[in-house]
């Protein structure tokens, strides 16, 4: 973004990993885990989720967008080692078959449930989980955490080199936070993607525009596309609209061998629900 100033050109051998110019994206001095989304990797410092740092994810409602975003990285971590993933204060029960389809090993998941009005014990449990040698990642839903609490978590994650995601409500964006990486997640109903991700704090310049990621599993996306197509055809036959003017923009992922479209269409019972 910035053109190199004369001073910067005079010091070309500052290509040290420990020197970070604020105008550039942060270096790869930290160990990272690929997010599974190339577009997101490109805008994160180091090219992935940093290990040993607090990653703060803000979303309007807990439990709406988490798994699509973090599941690929967790699955990659689980494939590397034989360690545990700990969920702290998850809003609902994680559903094994669906997460298994995102290639997560559910048997290596530990869930610590919250109780209303018991935020301190969730913070304690998060810190305990971070200190455990046989845990590689912690997902914590801490709507009531304050900056001082997060600082302690950040220190613990850094000391024990853990992947730590903390999910908080959108109002936390106005508060200061010790997290080196903060993201805002919002649902989107567009063809290009279903999740709008804005990286509003990172080691680097602010993000120009939010990213659109397609985080749904391929089979689910195909089912939704097929349903949409069917509804469009029905409308065409009924002659309600004149959709012939519009080209069909439904992209069916035909390349996935395990999800043939006809099988998906067969699943849908032919009920007239209109």
């Amino acid at each position: 973004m910035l053109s190199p100033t004369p001073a910067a050109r005079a010091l070309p051998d500052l290509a040290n990993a420990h020197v970070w110019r604020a105008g550039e994206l942060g270096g790869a001095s930290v160990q990272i885990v690929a997010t599974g989304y190339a577009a997101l990797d490109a805008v994160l410092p180091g090219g992935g989720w940093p290990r040993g740092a607090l990653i703060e994810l803000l979303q309007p409602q807990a439990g709406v967008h988490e798994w699509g975003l973090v599941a690929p990285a967790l699955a990659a971590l689980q494939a590397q080692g034989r360690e545990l993933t700990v969920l702290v204060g998850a809003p609902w029960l994680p559903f094994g078959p669906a997460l298994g389809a995102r290639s997560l090993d559910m048997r290596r998941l530990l869930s610590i449930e919250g109780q209303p009005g018991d935020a301190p014990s969730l913070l304690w449990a998060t810190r305990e989980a971070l200190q455990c040698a046989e845990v590689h990642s912690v997902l914590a839903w801490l709507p009531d955490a304050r900056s001082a609490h997060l600082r302690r978590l950040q220190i613990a994650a850094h000391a024990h080199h853990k992947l730590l995601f903390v999910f908080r409500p959108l109002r936390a964006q106005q508060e200061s936070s010790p997290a080196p990486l903060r993201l805002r997640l919002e649902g989107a109903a567009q063809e290009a993607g279903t999740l709008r991700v804005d990286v509003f704090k990172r080691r680097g310049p602010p993000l120009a525009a939010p990213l659109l990621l397609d985080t749904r599993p391929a089979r689910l996306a195909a089912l939704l596309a097929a349903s949409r197509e069917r509804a469009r055809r029905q409308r065409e036959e009924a002659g309600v609209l004149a959709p012939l003017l519009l080209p069909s923009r439904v992209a069916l992922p035909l390349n996935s061998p395990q999800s043939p479209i006809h099988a998906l269409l067969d699943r849908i019972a032919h009920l007239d629900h209109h």
Partner: protein
Amino acid sequence: MRCWIALRISTTTEAGQPACPMDAAMLQQAAASLALGLTPRVALVDEAVLMDVTASLRLFGGLARLMQLLVQRLEVFLGENGLRAEVRRAQGATSLIALGRLRVLDEGGAAVKKRVAELPMRTLTAARPHLGVLERIGCRTWDDLLRLPRDGVARRFGAELLQALDRARGSAPDDYEWLLLPEHFEEKLELNALVTHAPALMAGVERLLVQLHAWLLGRQSGLSALKITWHLDKRRDVPPTGELEVRAAQPAQDLRHVARLIAEHLAQQKLLAPVHSLTLQSLATELLADAAAATGSLLMEARKQGDSVVELVERLSARLGDARVRAWQPCADHRPELMQRWVPARGVISSLSAQLHPTRPGRKPSKGSKTASSSTPPEAKTEALYPAWLLPEPVKLAAAGNNPVYQGPLRRLAGPQRLEAAEWLLAGSEAARQQPFSGLSAKPWALRDYFIYRTQQGGLLWIYSERLGATPEGARQRAWYLHGFFA
């Protein structure tokens, strides 16, 4: 030639430091327990611990190595329990020579290798009543006394002194009542002051745990369960004792984890009356063959960084309760709410640990046969069209016209996906009722059509409508339930 070691631990208190929580006798007992890890011939004599290491020299690679190991274990033990103490040791061909040298060392004498003949008379316990007379007749060292005629010495000082000298010279058998550790640890502690607040009992418990630790090291075993009993003030109208049992999944020698568990449990206890004393009992121990090797290693890789999962689960369960720390288990069923179970992790801690350590040597045979005999867990089913979150109980939604409402109007994206469970039971329900299939008929029927709806915020919901039979009025007014979120 025999080889004896005399050992003495003295507490050091510095200005500004709190006094050592253990008295000298307890410390001596702990040192003797530790010494039992190196040789079975250990005795507590006067102020010192005497150990006959003749038979252990080859096993541990010589006297120098053995001494090093002994001091290292003592230091690790003292360090782990936060004690400040000084270890003095001396070696000799008989127990009394070793003890005599230790006493010279204690008095500040530098000559550890002092010749036996030059050892002063006062280092011999049997000579202590006669020190004044011996001094006046010019007997200052052992050698001086040996030069005197035996029968005269026996008449003047009694036979004990001569016997002691013979023992010291090795011409009489050097035998003691060897120390034996009890099969079960049980120790009572009178508290310095009445305790009214349960967490404050921890200080007393820690003192007892130090002794328990030494006992475990001496017996080369690990602790898996213990019981703490506190004795309440008898003047109150309450039961005289209260007790607490703490169990660990893995036998451990290092009691720091157990101490943290006890602290968590004590924090939740309420004392009915002031407590004046505590008893600590070991309930279950297990022999640890390689524990000494495991804890003695100084290499960084060999030392674990952080806690294990077992410790984590136990500690979390102790504070939050078993029901709040859960692990996942698959079930073979077609109804989504019965496809999985989140069970308390403390109950399945061994299988959780087995997931992380697939080939743990040593324990494999017993465990493998057990899992093979019991039913193997059902294979986890995967299905991308299910939501990532499931509500524990379906939430009934309000309906607007033919569609449900959740935080505003919803838009139907896909469905219906029909789920019919126990339909065959429905057909033959009369027959099923007569047969003792109570388990099956007790299962609720599920006749549902699942739909995927989208909220205005962009989230996807998994909503089903109950098909209330096939009657036309049942079909007209559908009941809608929210069952999951796609995330």
